[in-house]
């Protein structure tokens, strides 16, 4: 309310002056502007998803998922690529999740605040920022050539594992930090060692947060292309259909993300719906895993123990 409003008539306090009207208008303008900016990100998402699904519809079926590509990848399904992606994700996670969780335990529970640990933290941040193609070069130089793993599922998974590591560390750290310090002190006071405290109190009460982070990471790993291009994924490989154990860890494999890239850019005369169908499968997998993690997280919030 402006100071110079005549106070004689109390009703004036409630009528709009030119000043308050202007104020209200700018307020609405601001809200509208920022709201539009937000919507500008949300709407493309919906539009794109809808468009992709529409284009892919003719091809999507259960058979599409469970048969191998044929006729130079112009016909058939995506089974070998789908299975390859599953192998890569599972194996890389088996490597990065334990290391990442233990690293986060170190940083959150053991590390004192000194220059050394500040460097370690900085390393985590920077590892997260290394471009995926540089990870690919590293995987090629270190695992494929130096460690003589050749181009294999193992080499590709190791590369992916190192790429996902910092994100798992970050999300686990956050989960660990949400356990109150007073719990730890109570345990120390009765003579529990650090590890006993972590094992009995800290981990059980943060495990769900840790899992959410790991699940989210699954979805990101599934979509990565660059790091596996030169370390283990190939354009085409034929495997028996319906056998979940068709790949060995020293084999090369196909992967959904790579398959999408190949079909889009290298294969000529592919049916129009094919790349769309691959994209939708990949996207569907990723978003489904993501949604699971989000639902899991929301559900967790409802059952806190303190």
């Amino acid at each position, binding site marked *: 309310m402006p100071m110079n409003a005549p106070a004689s008539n109390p009703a004036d306090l409630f009528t709009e002056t030119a000043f308050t009207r202007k104020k209200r208008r700018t307020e609405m303008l601001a809200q509208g502007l920022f709201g539009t900016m937000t919507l500008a990100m949300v709407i493309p998402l919906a539009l794109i998803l809808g468009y992709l699904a529409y284009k892919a519809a003719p091809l999507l079926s259960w058979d599409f998922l469970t048969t191998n590509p044929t006729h130079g990848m112009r016909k058939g399904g995506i089974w070998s690529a789908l299975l390859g992606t599953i192998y890569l994700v599972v194996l890389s996670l088996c490597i990065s999740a334990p290391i990442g969780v233990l690293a986060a335990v170190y940083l959150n529970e053991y590390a004192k*605040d*000194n220059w050394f640990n500040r460097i370690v933290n900085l390393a985590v941040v920077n590892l997260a920022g290394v471009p995926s193609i540089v990870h690919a070069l590293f995987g090629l130089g270190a695992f494929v050539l130096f460690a003589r793993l050749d181009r294999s599922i193992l080499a590709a998974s190791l590369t992916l594992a190192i790429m996902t590591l910092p994100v798992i560390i970050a999300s686990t750290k956050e989960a660990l930090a949400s356990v109150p310090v*007073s719990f730890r*002190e109570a*345990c120390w006071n*009765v*003579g529990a060692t650090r590890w006993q405290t972590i094992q*009995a109190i800290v981990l*059980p009460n943060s495990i769900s947060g840790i899992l959410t982070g790991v699940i989210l990471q699954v979805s990101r790993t599934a979509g990565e292309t660059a790091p596996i291009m030169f370390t283990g994924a190939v354009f085409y490989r034929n495997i028996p259909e319906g056998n979940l154990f068709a790949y060995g860890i020293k084999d090369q494999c196909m992967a959904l993300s790579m398959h999408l890239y190949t079909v889009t850019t290298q294969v000529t005369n592919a049916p129009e719906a094919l790349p769309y169908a691959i994209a939708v499968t990949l996207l569907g997998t990723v978003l489904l895993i993501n949604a699971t993690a989000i639902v899991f997280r929301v559900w967790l919030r409802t059952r806190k*123990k303190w």
Partner: protein
Amino acid sequence: MTILPPEPVRPPSSESASPKILIEDLRLSYGPKEVIHGISFYIEPNEILGIIGPAQSGKTSLLRCINRTIDFTASAKVSGIIKVDGMDVRQMRNVYELRRKIGMVAPLPVGLPLSIYENVAFAPRTSGMRKKSDLDGLVEKCLRQAALWDEVKDRLDSLGTKLSGGQQQRLTIARALSHQPEILCLDEFSIAIDPVTTMRIEEVLRELKQDMTIILVTNLVQQARRLAARTLFLWNGEIIELDTTEVMFSDKAKDKRTNDYVNGIFG
């Protein structure tokens, strides 16, 4: 300025009752800031020693020095001698054994996010007790000692964090007793609970005195008067006075500040 205890500190071997805890010239600093300026005193076995003093005078830090949880504060620096049963705490390699000797009750009740049973069984388990029957007996004994058994005996499986504040504080005490300590430190335990519960716990403490040595840090001077045999007045990291509770709470106290504090003139 250090005022020595009224009696000279006896060397541990001079009498059969050697002091349970002996502290000599203890200094503690957090970074550049010294918060305890060289204090010395001793505690007899099976004694209740009251420690009173305004906030920020170093009471909690003192307790944390004794059970060495001060180690977890990276910036803390301790010097001087702290002896428990004649052994120098600061030279001890097995601090976990030391902490099991000392029960510690924090100002705010902390129920661990475990069942009530597991809250109490936690410490014995970590020290290697595995047999169910032993644990059952111990849990019941500790909960009874903490005057909580009757209220929770039918729901030992429910979460300790869901108890009321007063119940949680008694659970904390039960947990502190669960590793059968010889020394029990209570740090302003009544801060978060109602007067009735406080009186019940005080009753419990009088009984526990037969089994153990008790250090009672309290913000309620009258509580020290009710329970403690001797009372120590700590102010700004220095001992202003240490004497029998009768002397401290009478006008015979040597230092005027003691008089003022116990009469509520400052602090």
